[in-house]
């Protein structure tokens, strides 16, 4: 989850998020290089007494600063498109989980085998136990098996919401009357936090998401208990 003084993205838990993290590093490096070059040139411009009042044309530098940015943009676009297509790869999921956004909580349905469904409310600050995270903990977490491709179907029962888990690189809008699909694959066990990402009323900031990724045997035990 997010931590104090965090500067970058959260640690990646899914392969796609790992790719996005590296892409972000690559692109941000290009941005920093260009920005520092421009800043340096501006500082040079501002601290010189030399002048040149008879400029007619500058064909060579114009050519360079047209071609070079085009190359840089291609160097950004190619990895970006690679990841975009990677997100759309066809995979056969092992499990389907539905989540419905409400004002102001999420409900989850696991209906592949038995009918398992529950609501997930945020734990109010006064009821937190020591060590728990404020505005992030919920009463019923979404327990899922790790290292398996899971199809998440997201919709809403009332207004727009958005189901987001940054560590897995997921953010999908919950639209009433529409069923949006996203694919979830966590490479390691643990707790992964997210928050509603579409303004949905007064308690929009108070409907978090917590994924509990566990080995398959734990998941089977849990779902048998919950039904």
């Amino acid at each position, binding site marked *: 989850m997010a931590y104090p003084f965090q500067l970058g993205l959260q640690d990646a838990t899914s392969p796609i998020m790992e790719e996005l993290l590296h892409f972000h590093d690559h692109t941000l490096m290009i941005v920093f290089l260009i920005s520092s070059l421009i800043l340096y040139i501006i500082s040079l411009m501002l601290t010189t007494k030399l002048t040149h009042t008879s400029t007619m044309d500058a064909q060579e530098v114009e050519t360079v600063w047209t071609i070079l940015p085009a190359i840089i943009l291609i160097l950004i676009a190619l990895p970006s498109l690679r990841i975009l297509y990677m997100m759309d790869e066809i995979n056969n999921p092992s499990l389907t989980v539905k989540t*419905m956004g409400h004002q102001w909580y999420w409900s989850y349905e696991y209906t592949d085998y038995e009918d398992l469904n529950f609501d*997930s409310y945020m734990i109010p*600050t006064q*009821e937190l136990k020591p060590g728990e995270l404020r505005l992030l903990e919920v*009463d019923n977490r979404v327990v899922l098996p790790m*290292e398996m491709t899971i199809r998440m179907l997201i*919709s809403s029962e009332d207004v727009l919401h958005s189901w987001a888990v940054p560590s897995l690189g997921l953010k999908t809008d919950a639209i009433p009357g529409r*069923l949006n699909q996203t694919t979830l694959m966590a490479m390691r066990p643990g707790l992964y936090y997210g928050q509603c990402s579409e303004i949905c009323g007064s308690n929009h900031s108070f409907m978090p998401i917590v994924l509990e990724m566990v080995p*398959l045997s734990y998941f089977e035990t849990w779902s048998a208990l919950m039904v």
Partner: protein
Amino acid sequence: MLDVDSQKPPKGKWSTPPFDPRFPNQNQTRNCYQNFLDYHRCVKRMSRRGKSAQPCEYYFRVFHSLCPRSWVSRPRGRRRPAGGARVEGPVQLSRRPPPPRPPAPPQVQRWTEQIQEGTFAGKI
């Protein structure tokens, strides 16, 4: 992926709806609805011919996995959260009484109830 074969369900056992190339994109609304329609059409035609509706079970499993329950039928008693429904919200500064509630809209009928009442919009 580690040990892919052990994660596949035993042969013949239902796992989850497979990828359907008719609905390759993010919007799976039509996938759910189409399988719901196909199930009811299959049941209607099989029963008309006096055959068992067992082959229709595939469509049932697909729409049961994909469609939100609230779209299909009225919930039969929801689980209440363990700690109570108290939700943290912004501080209430005004002491005025809350405005009168508008009249509740007519209950949204689910598909199954609509079929039973004959108000379902799809063609079965």
